[in-house]
């Protein structure tokens, strides 16, 4: 009888195990197919790259952010605005205060009105936004064959799988597959939705020279500008990681102590034993007597 019970229990556990495993496999497969499905919807699915800042407690690679700013300034800024990023944001992130002031001073900003009621031009200050290349969206479209270059401040969040997507897009330009006709004014890039993008390939080996002497290969340029754009999308990232580290350090010991205390409070309740013996008549084994 015991054996039968045991084998039934084993069979039941086995059945539950098998059912759980097949459900998990099914869910995994559905998820994987789902990802591929949406990938085909949005162009090639970008590979996952080992971004330094994605580590549990890692900050941005600040040297990379600084180089990325150089790439943005010398290559991207010709067409793309960053209207949510101020020069002051660079201070103690990629530049010293003096350096950031010097960067800001390179741009000319329209200010005013002055005492005569006229607008005037002045060198930029830390409190100024990065300058936009076009006065408005219509001018930007007119200068780019009808396509509007998106603002890059939040672009790393405004695209699915942002960092991997931006890097893949910047390094993904190629000739269209055999048999596919080229389109006037568009460039083939399998990572872009639909495969044809108005932006021409912008990053080539040594297209700029890094101030820190890092070899400016195309993939290095793409990696650095992606890191810069990721920083721009979330400027509080490093502070957030510091708080995460504090959370991970402070909570476990508090939880452990609280767990022990909670167990202690419940000890009496948990170790109660209620004995019901309807045939007993004696006082010592009376029905409903409780033993601790």
């Amino acid at each position, binding site marked *: 009888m015991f054996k039968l019970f045991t084998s039934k229990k084993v069979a039941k556990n086995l059945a539950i195990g098998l059912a759980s495993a097949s459900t998990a496999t099914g869910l995994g497969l*559905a998820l994987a197919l*789902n990802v591929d*499905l949406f990938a085909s*919807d*949005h162009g090639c699915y970008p590979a996952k790259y080992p971004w330094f800042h994605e580590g*549990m407690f890692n900050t941005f690679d600040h040297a990379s952010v600084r180089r990325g700013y150089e790439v943005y300034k010398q290559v991207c800024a010709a067409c793309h605005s960053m209207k*949510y990023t101020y020069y002051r*944001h660079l201070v103690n992130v990629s530049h010293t205060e003096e350096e950031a002031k010097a960067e800001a001073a390179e741009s000319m900003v329209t200010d005013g009105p002055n005492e005569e009621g006229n607008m005037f031009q002045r060198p930029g200050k830390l409190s100024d936004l990065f300058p936009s290349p076009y006065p408005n969206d219509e001018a930007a479209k007119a200068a780019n064959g009808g396509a509007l270059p*998106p603002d890059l*401040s*939040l672009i790393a*969040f*405004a*695209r*699915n799988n*942002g960092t991997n997507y931006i890097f893949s897009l910047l390094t993904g330009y190629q000739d269209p597959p055999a048999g596919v006709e080229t389109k006037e004014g568009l460039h083939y890039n399998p990572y872009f*939705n639909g495969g044809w993008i108005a932006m021409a390939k912008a990053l080539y080996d040594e297209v700029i020279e890094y101030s820190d002497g890092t070899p400016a290969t195309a993939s290095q340029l793409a990696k650095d500008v992606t890191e810069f754009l990721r920083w721009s*999308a*979330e*400027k*509080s990232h490093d*502070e*957030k*990681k510091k*708080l*995460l580290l504090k*959370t*991970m350090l402070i*909570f*476990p010991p*508090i*939880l452990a102590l*609280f*767990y022990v*205390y*909670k167990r202690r*409070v*419940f000890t009496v*309740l948990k170790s109660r034993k209620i004995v019901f013996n309807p045939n007993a008549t004696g006082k010592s084994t009376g029905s409903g007597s409780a033993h601790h």
Partner: protein
Amino acid sequence: MTFRKSHPLIKIVNSTLVDLPSPANLSVNWNYGSLLGLVLVIQLVSGIVLATRFSGHSDISFDSVISIYQDSNYGWLLRLVHSTGASFFFLFIYLHIGRGLYYGSYIYPEVWNIGVLIYLILMGTAFLGYVLPWGQMSYWAATVITNLLSAIPWLGSILVEWVWGGFAVGNPTLTRFFALHYLLPFVVTALVILHIFYLHLYGSSNPLGVSSNTNKVSFHYYYSVKDLYVYFVFFFIFMFFTLKYGYSFMDAENFIPANPLVTPTHIQPEWYFLFAYAILRSIPNKLGGVLGLVLAVMVLFLFSISSTQLLFSGTIYSPLARLTFWSLVSVFFLLTWLGSCPAESPYTEVALASTIAYFSLMVIMCVWPHVSTYLYLKS
């Protein structure tokens, strides 16, 4: 008599949180209610502080949200806590309702119906809040959801324009949505107090489903300590998710300012509304879809009909009822997934089948305890 039992105000607190007789055998499934209370407080506090910095005008709403999270002290944390808090709110709501269905908590009609009402208002509040950052998904979610009103015969188009405050979703819509998003949480709070009042009138249910009158302990120390412990566990998990995956809960489209001329490729709500969204889309008729969406939640009211006369409630005494419950959970997950899929074959067909399964299982779960009671009394 001690002070805590005699003071007219303190004795209410005493009877709610100190001397309250509670079943001795409550499992962790009875913690979702207190966790929901905590999340409500988190949402209220973070929301009110965010509102001091937010501008509810369509020209600057998006910019003000960006400014909050990149230029104000710990504004990023408040925003992350508020958005992740919404997800946890719904996670615990679903667990709380699931616990109620499994253990038959609907035998207390007032508690159950007020709970369903809170859930309905909460869905509205979350939707209104989602519109406020005025990103692409905010704008198009507002457009899609408010347009549902147009399915109402005769009055539809008038109602839609009345809600919009114009001929399209625009600044008047955003302004009134902000006002209502600020107001409704206080209505929820009032209903929560009523929910707890009626609960304590009857006393908590317990995992065995039988009367616990012979086996009570006082709330304090047992459940005050347990609730506090679970609060700390929650805070740990909540902070971890907020700080590690906070932005993963947000749609990429909502980092693009609202543009009435560009429709996003895939319009979809947050994960917690996906099941209802799948039901809405699965019915190939606008009015039918809207009715399906409304009924998906309203069906919960059915459970309280004549429920006080039940001898059996919930699923614990019936393996078949448990099978129905877990099938309902599976269908809920399936609908949630389908809500994120494009509205095309084969998803639409599977969604229609899942919608039929959802309502069928709900009705079976609702009727089953009545059938069991009838059969028992007959035998």
